[in-house]
Structure formats: structure tokens, C-alpha cells
């Protein structure tokens, strides 16, 4: 019955809403926000039109990477409850359309970035798309529980791209912002993967809770939180941000650590008992928005 529906639907022209869904718009908001903050934290002001275009390119590049991820992972998405309703596994879109859409959007975003801002920003954008698609999606995700650790680098590029678009170079602060997102990604995704573990296990994805168990994952979450907090606060003692940022980043990181310790203390093995994990996952999103927001507020205030 499902097969018949899927075959019938794929013969129809793609609905624009399904093409939009391929870009994972909700994930894009965090990417756009961190990219914008990287740009606003830069010491050089960029022309508003060029700044807008650079942020648009970051959003389009993230959308392209997401579309290519969904194109490659359609078989995997079909096996997981969380992703089975996406346009490709649900049969509302054919894979070739998704591939063409992703490649076209990616090439367009890189070229527009190069022409509007500069080619360094365009090169970093291209690297981030290729890293997400080739290194994370194709190479690591199905092979190693370290998939999120190394693949997290792909999501850490936007503030570097925003900074590079404004200044034409990459200095220590954007590298620290990169490190912050890179170190934030494992606790963020592992908190999620703890309470959707059965989904990943069913799909055969070697996420850490599936391979090493819940308690080993909880230890890793707590361990990663320490260098993440250090990377968040580091711009203050290094003189790259003011005390306003430093105090806010320290307070937000402390709250993150408290939630990570509550996760560490939890021994539940069923999702119904994983309230601390769900709280940490929700807070981790707020945390990244707040830390990057604090950096911009600090820069404007000083």
C-alpha cells in the first residue's frame, strides 16, 4: 500500500514545500544566527547589502548540505521514526530532484558569496558543505561512533564564514568560535541520541549510546562540556571580548555543566526516564544562541 502511494507521488512534480523541507529550515536558524554573530563580532563593518548577501549564502549553503544529506540518507531516514516523514523516505519527492536541487543550491551559494563578499569566505563555505556531505554523511556517519565528534566541524564553520565575509581573513576569535561549536556538538547530539537511541539502533547507525551504552555516553557528555566551557569563556581572558561577554559566557556554561552533571547522575535506560537528557538537549540550543548573542552585545556595548 505504501509502495503504491510512493510510486504515484514520485511521478508528480515536486511540491515546493517538500523542496523547502529538504533544506532543514529549523537547523538553518542556528547556522544563520552563528554566521551573523561571527560577522557582527568582526572589527570591520561590512556593507549591509553585502552582509545580507553573505548571510543568505550561508543559509543557502546550509540548505544545500542538508538536501544532499537527505538525498544520500533516504534509506536510513526511512528506518527511523523521527525522519520517516521527510520528503524522500515518504515518497513525495524523487532522489534525482533532491540531488539536482542540493548541488545547484550549493554551487549557487558559493559563487554568489565569492562575487558579493570575497573568495576566502566562498572557499570556507564550499569546504563546510563538502565536509558535511562527504566527510560526515558519506564517510563517518555509518562507520564510527565518532561521527558526531569529527562531523561536528561542518556546523562550526558559519561564524568563520561570517567573519571572513566581513574582514577577508580568519583570526583567533573566529577560530575560538569554531572550537566552541565543534566542542558543543557532541554533548548536544549525544543528549538527543540517548533518548532516540532505539531509532538509531534500528537504522544501524553507530551512535555512541548504541555502540558504547548510555552511561559511557553520559560520561563523554560531561567530559566534552569542560573544554566547551573553556572555549566559550576564552575570548575574555585573551582580550578578544569584554567582561560582559566573559561573565555571561561563564554563567551560561556553568548552567550547561550543571545539566550535564544531572545527565551523568541519571541511570535511566528508557526515554521516559530521560528528563535530564531532554533538558540538556533543549538548553544546549538556547546556550549557543545566548553565548553568540552575548558576544555581539558585548561588541556593540564596547
Amino acid at each position, binding site marked *: 500500500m505504501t509502495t503504491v502511494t510512493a510510486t504515484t507521488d514520485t511521478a*508528480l512534480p515536486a511540491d*515546493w514545500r517538500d523542496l523547502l523541507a529538504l533544506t532543514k529550515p529549523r537547523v538553518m536558524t542556528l547556522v544563520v544566527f552563528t554566521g551573523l554573530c561571527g560577522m557582527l563580532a568582526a572589527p570591520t563593518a561590512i*556593507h549591509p547589502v553585502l552582509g545580507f*548577501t553573505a548571510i543568505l549564502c550561508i543559509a543557502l549553503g546550509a540548505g544545500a548540505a542538508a538536501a544532499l544529506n537527505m538525498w544520500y540518507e533516504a534509506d536510513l531516514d526511512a528506518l527511523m521514526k523521527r525522519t520517516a516523514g521527510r520528503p524522500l523516505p515518504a515518497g513525495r519527492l524523487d532522489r534525482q530532484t533532491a540531488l539536482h536541487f542540493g548541488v545547484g543550491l550549493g554551487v549557487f551559494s558559493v559563487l554568489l558569496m565569492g*562575487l558579493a563578499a570575497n573568495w576566502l569566505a566562498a572557499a570556507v563555505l564550499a569546504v563546510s558543505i563538502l565536509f558535511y556531505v562527504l566527510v560526515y554523511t558519506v564517510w563517518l556517519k555509518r562507520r564510527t561512533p565518532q561521527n558526531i565528534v569529527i562531523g561536528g566541524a561542518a556546523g562550526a564553520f558559519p561564524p568563520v564564514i561570517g567573519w571572513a565575509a566581513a574582514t577577508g581573513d580568519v583570526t583567533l576569535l573566529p577560530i575560538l568560535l569554531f572550537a566552541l561549536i565543534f566542542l558543543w556538538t557532541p554533548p548536544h547530539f549525544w543528549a538527543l541520541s540517548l533518548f532516540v537511541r532505539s531509532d538509531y539502533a534500528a537504522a544501524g547507525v553507530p551512535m555512541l549510546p548504541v555502540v558504547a551504552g548510555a552511561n559511557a555516553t553520559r560520561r563523554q557528555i560531561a567530559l566534552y562540556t569542560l573544554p566547551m566551557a573553556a572555549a566559550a569563556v576564552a575570548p575574555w581572558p585573551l582580550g578578544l571580548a569584554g567582561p560582559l561577554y566573559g561573565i555571561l559566557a561563564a554563567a551560561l556554561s556553568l548552567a550547561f555543566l550543571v545539566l550535564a552533571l544531572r545527565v551523568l547522575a541519571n541511570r535511566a535506560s528508557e526515554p521516559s526516564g530521560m528528563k535530564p537528557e531532554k533538558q540538556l538537549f533543549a538548553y544546549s540550543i538556547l546556550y549557543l544562541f545566548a553565548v553568540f548573542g552575548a558576544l555581539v552585545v558585548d561588541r556593540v556595548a564596547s
Partner: protein
Amino acid sequence: MSDPRDEEIRRRQKARAVIMALLLGAFVILVYAITIAKMGMHR
């Protein structure tokens, strides 16, 4: 009586054509604005 499937195809084609026209229009305006901004920077 027209086939409901044909109607759905037409509806989707029309929606995509409208969105493509809007996107192309926005792109033309964006390129114009980028050109003006770049010319202003090199003055």
C-alpha cells in the same frame, strides 16, 4: 470531467512557476543592489 491527478499536476506546476518567478525577481534586485554597493566601495 478532468482527472484530479492532472489538476494536482497543474496546481504544483503553477505554484513552482510563481515561486521561481519571485525568486528570479528577487535575484535580479539583489544583483543590482550588490553592484551599487560594490561601486560605492570603490569610489
